[in-house]
């Protein structure tokens, strides 16, 4: 049982980590693509249309990867987490079914039109199809976060005698106080990823002296979108999301911040340190007194509960993993804001395109929003452990009762093999598109 649970968790963690690399780009990128097309409609400058086509191509590839790696997510609820599905399916099935019906049909119907229908549709309708795809992908994110939020902070339910969760308030699923801050935080974070990718490829073109005019356009667009989104990720959305954790999952918050012992007169904020779970202390810490209390409650002396205030049984299962995930996310988020502020400053001074070190930094920063997004997702998920449905259902109680560990190990290995192949193919093709450059993308003759 232990072993099976371990493989089940590894499989879900692995498949969702890989899956989320793609939608986090496409959700944000769809907005940037719509922006390019809109600029084209306004200015009639061909460069914007070329930019639209180029990013559409990257979008399409990412979207396809997102779809094929997304189907296993829905399946796994039933295959690996049958008990969880049986007991909560009447509730979370609701939002998941809505995702299929509202988002996937919208996206898949219009993607073909968006990719191949420019000549058939004309530019205005082409813009509209792009907008519809964006709405579809943002709705998809919304319904997934709604499902996730119910697991973090269950609402609108009652539990029957046979242990089944049944819905008794449909609206509550969407009025969940956990939902909106998480959703906006998530969407802003996905915009950060796509902005950094757009800016990074722009920097690459300028540095390699290929497609320089596109490089400048991408860089400028990426920096402006990047600065706005990386600020929104922190304030207000990140701040509100953290306050939700304090309110609804105080023990998680204590572990995230690495607070082992409650400090009566205000809590310090830990910038760096390694949690020592056994001896309940932080090694090598650098901390600033009282800041955490202020950030959390707006009051310098407010007490924040440490892990010692909660029964060990309720502590998050992986305290150090949670602590690191959270700190990596916050640390990287701070770096993003800093880098984008400097970039915008140079852009305004008209020196961004010549500042070599900044261009190199922007180019090499491309993978880091992916890391920040992934660790952010880990923060939420590890924070909820050992619960599947917070405070109501343990993870161990959700696994499929009849599937043996051998089978879950077998399928885990299968997924690893298949996804390694997918990942390599993806990188190969994306590299090819980037290397060819925006001038060579001719959509009306492209094949799916």
């Amino acid at each position: 049982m232990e072993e099976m649970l371990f493989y089940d968790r590894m499989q879900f963690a692995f498949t969702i980590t890989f899956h989320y690399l793609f939608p986090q780009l496409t959700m944000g990128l769809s907005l940037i693509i719509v922006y390019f097309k809109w600029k084209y409609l306004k200015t009639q400058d061909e460069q914007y249309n070329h930019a639209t086509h180029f990013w559409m191509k990257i979008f399409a590839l990412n979207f396809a990867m997102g779809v094929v790696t997304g189907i296993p997510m829905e399946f796994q609820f039933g295959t690996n987490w049958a008990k969880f599905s049986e007991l909560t399916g009447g509730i979370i099935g609701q939002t998941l079914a809505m995702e299929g019906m509202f988002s996937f049909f919208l996206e898949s119907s219009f993607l073909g039109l968006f990719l191949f229908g420019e000549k058939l549709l004309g530019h205005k309708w082409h813009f509209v199809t792009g907008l519809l795809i964006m709405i579809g992908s943002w709705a998809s994110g919304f319904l997934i976060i709604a499902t996730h939020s119910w697991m973090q902070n269950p609402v609108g339910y009652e539990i029957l005698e046979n242990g089944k969760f049944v819905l008794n308030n449909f609206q509550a699923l969407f009025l969940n106080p956990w939902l909106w801050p998480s959703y906006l935080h998530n969407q802003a974070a996905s915009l950060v990823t796509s902005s950094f990718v757009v800016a990074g490829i722009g920097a690459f073109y300028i540095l390699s002296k290929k497609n320089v005019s596109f490089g400048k356009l991408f860089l400028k667009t990426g920096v402006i979108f990047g600065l706005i989104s990386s600020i929104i990720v922190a304030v207000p959305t990140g701040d509100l999301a953290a306050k939700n954790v304090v309110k609804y999952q105080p023990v998680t918050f204590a572990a995230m911040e690495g607070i082992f012992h409650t400090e009566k007169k205000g809590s310090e904020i830990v910038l760096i340190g390694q949690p020592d779970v056994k001896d309940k202390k932080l090694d090598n810490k650098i901390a600033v007194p009282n800041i955490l209390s202020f950030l959390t409650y707006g009051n310098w002396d407010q007490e924040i509960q440490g892990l010692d205030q909660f029964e060990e049984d309720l502590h998050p299962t992986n305290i150090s993993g949670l602590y690191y995930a959270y700190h990596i996310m916050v640390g990287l988020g701070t770096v993003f804001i800093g880098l984008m502020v400097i970039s915008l400053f140079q852009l305004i001074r008209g020196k961004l395109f010549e500042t070599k070190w900044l261009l190199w930094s922007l180019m090499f920063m491309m993978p880091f929003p992916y890391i920040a997004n992934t660790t952010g997702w880990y923060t939420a998920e590890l924070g909820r452990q050992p619960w599947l449905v917070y405070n109501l259902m343990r993870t161990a109680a959700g696994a499929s009762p009849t599937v043996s560990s051998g089978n879950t190990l077998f399928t885990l290995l299968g997924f690893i093999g298949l996804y390694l192949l997918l990942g390599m193919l993806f990188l190969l093709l994306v590299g090819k598109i980037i290397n060819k450059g925006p001038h060579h993308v001719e959509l009306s003759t492209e094949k799916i």
Partner: protein
Amino acid sequence: MEFFWYVVLMGILAVYLVLDGYDFGAGIIHLFFADTEKDKKAITNAIGPFWDANEVWLIAAGGVLFFAFPTLYASSFSGFYLPLIMILWLLIFRAIGLEMRGQIHNHMWEAIWDKAFGIASLLLALFFGIALGNIVRGVNLGMVQNGVSTQEAHYFFLPLWNPTFSPQANELGIIDWFTLFLGVVSVVALTIHGANWIIYKTNSALNPKLKNLVFRLNFVLLVLVFISLGIWHFIEPKPFHNFVENPILWFFPLMTFVGIAGLFKVRSFKKDGHGFIFSTLFLVGGFASTAVSIFPNVLPSTNKVNPSLTIYNTAAHEYGLNAGLSWFFIALFLVIIYFIIQYRVFSGKMDDIGYGEH
């Protein structure tokens, strides 16, 4: 309410069968009958802008199953664990086959992805038939041994096969001669269906050849259908009891036979789309007849200890099912609009509008 959602679920599955069915069929044709580069291109053009959206119907069916019949979803997905994960891998493999092929122009590269697409399509058609066979045959719910359940009443797990290969063994497996037979029926039916789609959507040189193929395969299909009616008795002692009680249900088997009969005229249809209509009638009729024959069961139990899973004992709670209505009709309305737009823009022969030309 359960009945409503059951009809919705079956409706979505039937649409999925018809739409992704022609994708699978096109893949099988691609594997066995496309010799020239031009033929291959005609086939992939015929499904190019559609297959992605077709697959969404499967996800939609999964979603509706999950929320309306969570117990059925949980027990069947964990019970059919191995084949379902393999179906997933095949779906992924087929999709990357289609996506990757055109990306690099190299003979070997194209050959590899052609095979990936074709073989995955063939196996998927086979697996879906096997899946249907498993659902009709039923499973050992509760994993009963010697009259005692070792699991909760609705849980089970099936290995891929058992040593006896029999649908009546005590220890059932996914693949036995009965389910394999239905798999073969599915492959033949979907090959015909895919060929009809290609005839409908292209002007390729392959079309006359495909018409002959449909005509010949239709004989095979007719024979297979009669045999399957014969062997049904092994699984269900009174296979027609629902039809006897409600004669109106004979509509579905009738539809199946109208479909098969019509397909014999494939070489003389005035319009290329007619063949596709008849194979659709066959598929929908056949699928509905099968579902109706076990109704209200959705997964029969092969032991006497635990009751079969029905739409009533697996459904979600009344409130949730009612709440689902509030969004379902809006969604369905939108889906129909998208569908009409998509098929209008890409109407006509795909090679006429130059889609996918390099």
